């Protein structure tokens, strides 16, 4: 291929081709259509950032320096009440564990109630489902705040918040798993004359248990994550210690606590992956 053959195509030939095959060339309108979404998105972001007062970032330097300094300079480390911090972490783990456990047990019942193939009553099922939608629609942190108002500050509110929001989500996942099972085993058990509870125990449960376990373990992991921040609204755990130190302007301690939280999250991720592999085998997930 010679370069000459390319340069031999002159302007006249190009315009001829453009006239002969208009569809093969881009029109200015195509260019506009191609770029318009990007221009609109960028204009929107710039506009909204100005609306949200982006200029504050420039005035923030003094406080940012204080934060950055607190990351490196840790003062009076002997007086940091480590026992307090690690009790908070233990509390976070306990809240996540109890909340997930209660949520799992509750979802076992509600999940069967919300499953189409177990619960024949359409009306009851709809009520249960709408109720679960409401539980799911409200964020865990809001539940935390509500329970702090109802039962007072402390881990009890956190456990209840995790329980309620898990009940909403896990029941839905459980009922979907139940609806997707193989009918044959259920009919086999029913054919032996078993009662409804025995049908659930021997017909449904063996099929859905692995799914249930893996989902509950996954929720345990994600609840440990969210339990670290539930304390921000006063619902117990490490978050409460974090926000106390933050209000007392002990930023070096805050940074230390945040590092601990991050380490905790990474450990939980790793541990939960191991347990999941052990419980349900290498194949799934």
């Amino acid at each position: 291929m010679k370069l000459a053959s390319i340069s031999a195509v002159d302007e006249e030939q190009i315009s001829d081709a453009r006239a002969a095959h208009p569809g093969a060339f881009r029109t200015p309108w195509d260019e506009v259509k191609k770029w318009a979404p990007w221009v609109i998105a960028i204009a929107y972001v710039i506009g909204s950032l100005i609306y949200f007062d982006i200029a504050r970032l420039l005035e923030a330097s003094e406080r940012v320096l204080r934060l950055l300094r607190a990351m490196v300079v840790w003062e009076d480390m002997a007086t940091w009440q480590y026992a307090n911090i690690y009790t908070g972490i233990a509390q976070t783990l306990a809240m996540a564990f109890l909340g997930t456990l209660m949520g799992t047990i509750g979802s076992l019942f509600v999940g069967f109630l919300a499953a189409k193939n177990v619960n024949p009553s359409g009306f009851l099922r709809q009520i249960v489902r709408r109720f679960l939608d409401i539980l799911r629609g409200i964020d865990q942190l809001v539940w935390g705040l509500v329970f702090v108002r109802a039962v007072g500050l402390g881990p009890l509110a956190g456990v209840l918040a995790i329980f309620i929001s898990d009940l909403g989500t896990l029941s839905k996942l459980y009922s979907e798993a139940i609806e997707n099972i193989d009918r044959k085993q259920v009919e086999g058990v029913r054919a032996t004359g078993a009662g409804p509870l025995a049908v659930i125990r021997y017909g449904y449960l063996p099929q859905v248990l692995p799914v249930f376990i893996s989902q509950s373990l996954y929720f345990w992991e994600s609840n440990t994550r969210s339990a670290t921040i539930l304390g921000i609204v006063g619902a117990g755990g490490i978050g409460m210690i974090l926000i106390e130190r933050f209000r007392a302007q002990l930023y070096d301690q805050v940074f230390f606590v945040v590092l601990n939280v991050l380490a905790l999250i990474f450990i939980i991720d790793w541990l939960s992956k191991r347990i999941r592999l052990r419980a349900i085998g290498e194949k799934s997930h």
Partner: protein
Amino acid sequence: MTDATITAGGAGAAPRDAVSTYERHRAELRASKRVWNILFLSAFLICLALSIYISRFYPDRLAEGVPRIFEYFATILPDLQWDVLFDGRDENGRAVPGSLTFWYTDFWDYLQLLWETILMAVTATIIGTAVAFVMSFPAANNLAPNSWVYWLSRRFLEICRGIPEILLALVFVFAIGIGPLAGVLAIAIHTAGALGKLFAEVNENASGRPVDGITAVGGTWPEKMLYGVVPQVMPNFFSYAMLRFEINVRASSIIGFVGAGGIGAELNRVISFYSDDRVLAVLILVVLMVTIIDLISEDIRHRFIGKENF
């Protein structure tokens, strides 16, 4: 198990030996499984006991607390009366107790805050997606130009998504003051981390042939990404970004708890300071907003995916 049978057969032993080898092996397996089960169960029970002890989750506290929950939910119910339900304000601008207008006195304030919440989510999603888009190419192990760039971008994304967004918001509120900007930045950083990982996974599954083609004609690394990978992954990216937008609407509705803008601040205020029908009024609006946004976003996603034939 197969090993044992083969050696038994190879040694020319009677079939009886093979059976007993099998039985012995099976007994061993069962015993070890039983040991594991007992270990697992006792670990579980220890965890349970410890958790109950640490969080002081005792039956008496629970028995004391649960009735108060129902009492609380009773106090936040509005006292609506049917005969005046749709009455407006009178000439003095006062609403009739028992009417919807009375219940939703601050309706327009709430609506403005909800609008701000949605704007925060949109801006944070766009910024976060843009960062995730750029970072996803060096963070994909088939596309990264070299291993340390790959390592650095992976760790960067991990840190971005590892810190809970409300913590980030707390820090930003301290650094730049109360207001929606802190929330936008916090959510954008978290979005960049979470989406960056998903985008990188999409990139890793993209076909390498277009990239090879562009390498063959002498394309630079950015050109390879732009013309070789981006056209393949765009529909997936868009769908993930829309899903993230739904999550971000939820996040921005609570991020105001620490003063980072949106409806969250109002939600925090009404729950913490009042226990009357205002709590339910705001909660209903938040749930409605989240539901409507979910429906719209789902519709857009289906349309886009349908169009792209994906």
